[in-house]
């Protein structure tokens, strides 16, 4: 990695942290400016007051925000409002691990399926694979992830009745189903882009040069065509990560995966302010880092691109 890239990456990293700070501030202020607090004051006014005081909710907003920022820069996101005594930061870090595993497998599904279909459709242009692709693409961006997930659950229940329970988390055999449900719809988008890009690349002069050199078709397609075709495809990397994060909210809920997405749904349903603010901060950092990672991939794939 060149020095220019490092400086560029450093600058972008600062930008990510800045964005995360703004996002956490906005969510904090919005959430805390709401009337009332999450503690049920109707039943137990005294206890409610006590608990609210423990969380500092009786201070004015400015002091609350000052404390929040102070804690935030020290890497502390405070406590859960619902499950008392649970610290937000360690909880989210633990859950982020599970989400990361799911997300990585989903991205692998997206990339592998998308590239295989896209490349095949381009090489066998006007074949049935190519013709089915446009329908698959529309299916891909039409099918809601929860519909795909439910179908997959039914299918495994019918086809593999003896298979271990597909719902749950912790065993390796519980990874494929949610990963496919999460990753497959976006594979259609990758496939479409790959096809268009490959069709462009395989007509390039340097691919003709590669044929004239006597290289095998496998080498030409993978090393010469695909490597170049991937460059425009990476642009979906950022949106892909966003889609995976969004999708994980529902997939983790369906499959009972203890990750950030499930926590997100629960914290909003339970109105757990502490976790909500923490999660938004977390997501802002995740999306920022993912986009940064994608941008740092460009110079790796294309030597003509340099960050100076």
């Amino acid at each position, binding site marked *: 990695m060149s020095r220019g890239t490092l400086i560029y990456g450093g600058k972008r990293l600062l930008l990510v942290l800045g964005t995360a700070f703004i996002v956490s501030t906005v969510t904090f202020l919005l959430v805390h400016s709401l009337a009332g607090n999450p503690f049920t004051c109707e039943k137990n006014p005294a206890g409610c007051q006590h608990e609210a005081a423990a969380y500092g909710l009786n201070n004015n907003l400015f002091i609350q925000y000052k404390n929040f920022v102070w804690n935030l820069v020290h890497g502390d996101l405070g406590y859960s409002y619902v499950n008392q005594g649970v610290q937000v930061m360690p909880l989210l870090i633990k859950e982020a691990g599970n989400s990361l595993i799911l997300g990585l497998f989903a991205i692998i599904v997206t990339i592998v399926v998308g590239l295989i279909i896209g490349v095949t459709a381009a090489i066998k242009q006007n074949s049935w694979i190519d013709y089915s692709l446009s329908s698959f693409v529309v299916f891909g961006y039409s099918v809601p992830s929860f519909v795909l997930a439910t179908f997959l659950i039914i299918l495994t229940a019918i086809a593999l009745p003896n298979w271990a329970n597909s719902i749950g988390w912790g065993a390796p055999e519980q990874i494929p189903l949610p990963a496919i449900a999460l990753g497959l719809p976006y594979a259609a988008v990758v496939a479409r882009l790959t096809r268009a890009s490959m069709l462009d690349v395989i*007509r*390039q*002069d*340097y691919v*003709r*040069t*590669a*044929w*004239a*050199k*006597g*290289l*095998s*078709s496998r*080498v030409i397609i993978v*090393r*010469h065509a695909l*490597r*170049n075709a991937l*460059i425009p495809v990476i642009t979906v990397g950022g949106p892909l990560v966003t889609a995976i994060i969004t999708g994980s909210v529902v997939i983790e809920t369906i499959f009972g995966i203890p990750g950030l997405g499930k926590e997100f749904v629960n914290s909003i349903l339970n109105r757990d302010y502490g976790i909500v603010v923490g999660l938004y901060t977390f997501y802002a950092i995740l999306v920022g880092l993912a986009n940064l990672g994608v941008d740092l991939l460009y110079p790796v*794939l*294309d*030597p*003509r691109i340099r960050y100076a």
Partner: protein
Amino acid sequence: MAAILEVKGLKTQFIVRGGIVRAVDGIDFRVNKGETVGIVGESGSGKSMTALSILRLVPEPGKIVEGSITFDGRDVLAMNDDQLRKFRGNDISMIFQDPMSSLNPVLKVGYQIEEAMRAHDRFTPEEAKARVPLLLRRVRIPDPERRAKEYPHQFSGGMRQRAMIAMGLSNEPEVLIADEPTTALDVTVQAQILEQLRDLNKELGTAIVLITHNMAVVANICTWVVVMYAGRVVEQGPTEEIFRSPQHPYTWSLLRSIPRIDEKLGGKLLTIKGLPPDLTNLPPGCKFHPRCRFTVDRCFTEEPELMTVGPQHESRCWVQMDNVADRDSDIREVPVVPEAENAAV
């Protein structure tokens, strides 16, 4: 001399919506060992398609429909995919017109040359690696060790074409086909590249098939000339013979359209009137007759065969220019049109 490459009756066509494009319509020529052959013609004359046909690299929807290509006694058109792969870049290699786009932008130049050798078994992987700087030095790229580790965008146009030549020669092929290798380059660089090709032909004995629209380039380095028009060979013979006494009106016109330094100022240049024919809808008779100024009656109805007109010299015309007495009188009627594309075909 023994023929290393022989093309007979080759026809390459493109089936498109408007009909059949007869890009190459029955051509014959041969390349002897160590010879330099120039294939000359306008754009659309089928010269590039001929070159691509030899390596069976005709792009879709083009197809070789007839004829034979024989390399060293082997039938190229009968080769299966694997034989073809081993043939390309090993027995015959090719370099292309635009060096800017002919090298893969994401791979190092040295790697692309090494890869060409790795694809064939003439050299071991170690030898292949070691040969890269030697090859680059041979085509006069300075500091070859460092340059080998650079990407194409770090090379100038002329250097890229040199790298392409190094790649083309890496497996010591019998024949190197160069398709307009200098057209996209600066004039000064053009001369260097041509000189390079001539030297390599002398040093290594590699036969060179040079495809060009430029008669001057042919005169410079080729010993044999094939003139193409509308997918056919219209005249061929030794370079000296063709330049001294061209027999086909097309060749004759081409040579008369080049400004000559030994002619006095104000002399008139010949232009070839009209446009190259529509390859989906060729005229009857001789394909050149709509643009020819020396037609006789049979030109309109009957296409001539290649006829011997001198020692090793063939022409596809009912008329021999040597027999046209007042051939120069015509030129005076032609106004001076110093258009570059006409002057250089």
